[in-house]
């Protein structure tokens, strides 16, 4: 059976964040309850693609019609806490366009939409746990009614691991962005090392593709295989 350790508050965020007003209206006021884990919480859903369809593998346009922005190539790897690849993991990705505008009716930001940009992809990891996506680097945008909070460029990920408790929803950030220093969501991860793991790594440009910057990212889903490692 897959083993799950309790969340570490130094590497995980939760609760009410002073810089993020909505948390005060939505995070439970009562303490969360520790429960015993068993077959119900430590089983599937492994094959969510039985109920979901693949959605695009390229957000940067099609044919000659290219979305505006810096072309990037994301290489994300899904592994468990043992570092073992989660082959076949379903991964959802969404982000805003280069001007900081989402394809979503609830986005009231006045930045322009980009007709050649596709904001959402749903992919399945290969046997090495790898997914690859061509897209454009998202822009930064102001969060309404916050007195100056700008979200740094980021990419949303939703990932399924081996069991129910392995479900991971997170965001990927870009290196060298000054807005990273103040972002209320990134900095809710208190431990600097854990925070730095939320920032993608720019792959060496030598020998890379000529038209895109490659960013590498690792997504670690909860769970270790119960079988002890061979000595």
């Amino acid at each position, binding site marked *: 059976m897959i083993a799950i350790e309790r969340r570490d508050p130094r590497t995980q965020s939760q609760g009410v964040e002073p810089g993020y007003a*909505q948390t005060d209206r939505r995070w439970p006021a009562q303490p969360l309850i520790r429960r015993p884990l*068993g077959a*119900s919480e430590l089983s599937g859903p492994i094959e969510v693609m039985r109920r979901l369809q693949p959605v695009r593998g390229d957000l940067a346009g099609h044919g000659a019609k290219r979305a505006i922005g810096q072309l990037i190539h994301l290489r994300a790897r899904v592994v468990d806490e043992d570092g073992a690849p989660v082959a076949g993991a379903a991964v959802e990705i969404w982000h805003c366009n280069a001007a900081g505008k989402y394809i979503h009716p609830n*986005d009231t930001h006045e930045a322009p939409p980009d007709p050649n940009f596709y904001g959402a992809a749903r992919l399945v990891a290969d046997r090495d746990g790898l997914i690859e996506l061509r897209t454009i680097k998202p822009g930064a945008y102001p969060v309404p009614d916050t007195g100056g909070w700008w979200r740094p460029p980021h990419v949303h990920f939703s990932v399924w691991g081996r069991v129910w*408790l392995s479900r*991971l*929803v997170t965001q990927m950030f870009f290196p060298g962005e000054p807005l990273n220093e103040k972002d209320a969501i990134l900095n809710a991860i208190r431990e600097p090392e854990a925070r730095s793991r*939320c920032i993608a790594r720019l792959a060496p440009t030598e020998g890379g593709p000529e038209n895109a910057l490659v960013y590498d990212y690792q997504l670690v889903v909860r769970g270790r295989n119960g079988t002890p490692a061979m000595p």
Partner: protein
Amino acid sequence: MKRLAPSGEMTLGPFFPREFAQGANDLTVVDGKKAAGEIIEISGCVRQADGRPLDNVVLEIWQADAQGRTDNPGFFGWGRAATNSDGIYSFKTIKPGAIQGRAPHVNFIVLYSGLMRALHTAMFFDDAKDPVLDTVPKERKALLIGKKTPSGYRFDIRLRGEGETPFFDD
């Protein structure tokens, strides 16, 4: 073997694509075939601290089949729904049987903007003896029990405030 720390979970944010949220809330059909068991609807309203219903909240469930199995190839116990602008979500599913040592239940996670990470809870069908339900203080247990409706069960989720849904930490 060195353990890798799990990635930091973060909020879903307000702009989860509508196309992702649609079309996965019917668990009664698997690979084009009808699953065995009693068909029920589980629906409810999701509200925040001031009682306001919330739009575009993403809910995912995981449950056993009618016999209490989680590995039945003829049933897939996972689904996803999103609330509408009135805060209402709905699943069509099969009433789960009891997994060994447990009372019948449906696991829920709630994903939303303003939640730094997913919230976990579970819906039960009655006040049965169950090791997870028994961890909940007596006066709050009723909040985890679905209310019978003509078509199934109603399970309202209050994130914070009066009648706050009990959530689990694992």
